[in-house]
């Protein structure tokens, strides 16, 4: 055993090794120090998504891209924005993938199985993190969200900025006073006031839903206008710059809608009165989700239904439209965070000091992130750079322009809600679109790895047929015919899962009862 002196001396003589930092550790520490853990959840979520995407990138790249060759075509500047031309032939669109079998490597199967495995892995990891989060933050957590004890015990020790600490103490005082007076106030609300509140809520919800529908209809009209009036009036000539620029109209409109309408929704907050801050965030989230889902579903419906009928190579066209959409979304996000928040900051500090500096809106930023992730599931390549740059830009604008949110949210529960939102509806929506594309749509004649087949899934059929002739792999054919293709198999599996769920639910109920009895026992024992 060494004496303490020797130990300290030995450590002192060690050369100071360079710290291998966890990704973004310094930045996250300073953000947590000034804004606290609830804002940090946004960045934790971002990091999680980035790791997720890096993994998917590696999978896709390794199995699909590397075996392919890149063709040499002329390249023009506008194509960065429109994605036509040069990009048509790069590996970014699977329209250009060859359908040959290179050396023994069947491209069709490779592509199909890569996408299938990737989607399944995404689904499994999302379900897993969702359930773990749910268990920790909802089931095991206290039900009283405004409880004073909870507020006191979860004082954020990692906040190091002097002003932020002072602000937090003031906020905590306000929240404590609110929680004390809330119980008294609830009895004092008269019937007419309650009716007024409900009326305002109803009006705002009606307005927001109709806005969402209105935007979806607006986008439909735009598409119809574009394809029926503009492009049929003048013949599309390859190489006409103006024609290509016209295709930018729809993504521009969509991104503009996504930017402006949520601001309207935030305005509603001035009129509506919610009992807790969390309910306010959730209402805002639901409205924004609804808006985005309606626009996305309109676009998808258009792509799935209209495009294959007209276009000889629809995979590339759809890929291009997606690329444009993603790019514009990214550009607007950058512009929004730099100029929007910068301008609000300037207006708030210099011109109208009463308004104050903008708060960092965690909910809105997380939703942006989820939305761009959804677009990534349609076309896996464009997201990686975008994530990295958008995260750094958001954090820069955050530190310079925003102040911490006025009311501290329940960080852990918000994290659960974000993951839940990511999974359902966005992932499920993306999954169903991809499945629909694979099962029902006929691949185009001219391009894509599945050209010549009835639908993408037939690639597997063809492979199984080939396998019948190979001796020794009869078991694969047997499994395919009797298990994958038969409906009874899926029915049985569903039945078994339902039974297991029921049993686990009963076990949970039993445990709740046990907890209640044990608590009673503690009280009884201590009274002696």
């Amino acid at each position: 055993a060494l004496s303490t002196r020797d130990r300290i001396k030995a450590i002192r003589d060690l050369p100071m090794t360079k710290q291998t930092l966890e990704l973004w550790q310094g930045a996250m520490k300073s953000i947590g120090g000034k804004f606290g853990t609830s804002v940090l959840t946004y960045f934790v979520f971002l990091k999680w998504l980035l790791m997720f995407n890096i993994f998917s990138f590696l999978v896709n790249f390794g199995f699909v891209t590397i075996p392919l060759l890149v063709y040499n075509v002329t390249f023009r500047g506008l194509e960065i924005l429109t994605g036509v031309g040069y990009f048509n032939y790069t590996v970014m669109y699977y329209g250009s993938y060859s359908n040959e079998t290179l050396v023994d490597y069947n491209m069709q199967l490779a592509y199909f199985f890569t996408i299938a495995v990737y989607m399944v892995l995404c689904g499994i990891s999302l379900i897993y993190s969702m359930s773990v989060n749910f268990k920790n933050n909802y089931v095991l957590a206290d039900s009283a969200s405004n409880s004073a004890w909870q507020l006191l015990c979860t004082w954020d020790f990692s906040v190091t900025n002097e002003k932020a600490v002072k602000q937090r103490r003031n906020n905590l005082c306000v929240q404590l006073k609110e929680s004390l007076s809330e119980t008294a106030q609830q009895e004092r609300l008269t019937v007419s006031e309650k009716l007024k509140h409900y009326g305002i809520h109803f009006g705002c919800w009606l307005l927001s839903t109709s806005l969402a529908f209105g935007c979806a209809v607006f986008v439909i009209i735009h598409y119809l206008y574009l394809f029926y009036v503009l492009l049929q009036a003048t013949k599309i000539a390859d190489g006409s710059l103006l024609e290509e620029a016209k295709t930018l109209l729809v993504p521009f409109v969509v991104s503009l809608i996504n930017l402006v309408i949520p601001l309207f929704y935030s305005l509603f907050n001035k009129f509506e009165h919610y009992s807790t801050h969390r309910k306010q965030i959730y209402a805002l989230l639901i409205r924004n989700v609804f808006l985005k889902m309606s626009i996305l579903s309109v676009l998808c419906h258009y792509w799935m239904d209209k495009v294959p009928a007209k276009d000889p190579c629809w995979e590339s066209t759809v890929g291009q439209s997606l690329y444009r959409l993603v790019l514009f979304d990214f550009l607007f996000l950058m512009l929004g965070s730099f100029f929007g928040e910068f301008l609000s900051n300037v207006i708030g500090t210099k011109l109208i000091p009463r308004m104050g500096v903008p708060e960092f809106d965690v909910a809105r930023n997380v939703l942006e992130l989820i939305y761009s992730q959804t677009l990534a599931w349609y076309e896996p390549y464009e997201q990686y750079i975008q994530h990295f740059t958008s995260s750094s830009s958001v954090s820069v604008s955050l530190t310079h322009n925003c102040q911490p949110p006025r009311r501290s949210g329940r960080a852990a529960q918000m994290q659960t809600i974000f993951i839940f939102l990511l999974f359902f509806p966005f992932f499920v929506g993306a999954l169903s679109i991809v499945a629909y594309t694979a099962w029902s749509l006929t691949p185009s004649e001219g391009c894509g790895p599945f050209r010549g087949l009835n639908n993408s899934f037939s690639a597997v059929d063809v492979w199984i047929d080939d396998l019948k002739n190979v001796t020794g792999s009869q078991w694969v054919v047997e499994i395919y015919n009797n298990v994958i293709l038969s409906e009874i198999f899926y029915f049985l599996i569903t039945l078994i899962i339902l039974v297991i769920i029921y049993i686990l639910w009963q076990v949970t109920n039993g445990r709740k009862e046990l907890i209640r009895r044990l608590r009673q026992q503690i009280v009884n024992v201590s009274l002696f």
Partner: protein
Amino acid sequence: MGTTASQLSKESLSEYQELTFLTKQEILLAHKRFTELLEKHEKDQIDARVPMGKIITLPELKSNPFKERICRVFSTSEQKDGSLTFEDFLDLLSAFSDSATLEIKSHYAFRIFDFDDDGTLDCADLEKLVNCLTGETNDAKLSSTEMKQLISNILEESDIDKDGTVNLSEFQHVISRSPDFVSSFKIVL
């Protein structure tokens, strides 16, 4: 000499790694920051103590409302003056690190909130806790009726055996129902 020094250092470093929740880099960084606080002549001493006044100048602790309590809880000095040796400092960082368990954190949180060090949180402790966290200006303070109401709410919620104080197990029970605690009870250098 070189090989013996590195052999020694590997042993002590891994010993510290075993005894605390910190990683090697965190221990080295802690050592660097700790020696910056020492006087020149103390840098060669064994078991040098840094007085509380200097510890609370660390930027991570400077604005913390519990800085004095933290120093007193982790201090092993006999005069109970809140001074820390390097090993006390490592204990502190270990309890506040990312990998510390919920039991460790709630144990130390209880000791930090226990202002009179009597092993339970009674009304006086709770009152000091609330005042510590709500600020000193007059409009940020709670009035005495509000304070009484708040404390009785707290006791009603967490005092299971109804003895008028919150002991360690009741405190840990409340903490286990709050999922934000582990991520907020954190200090990173």
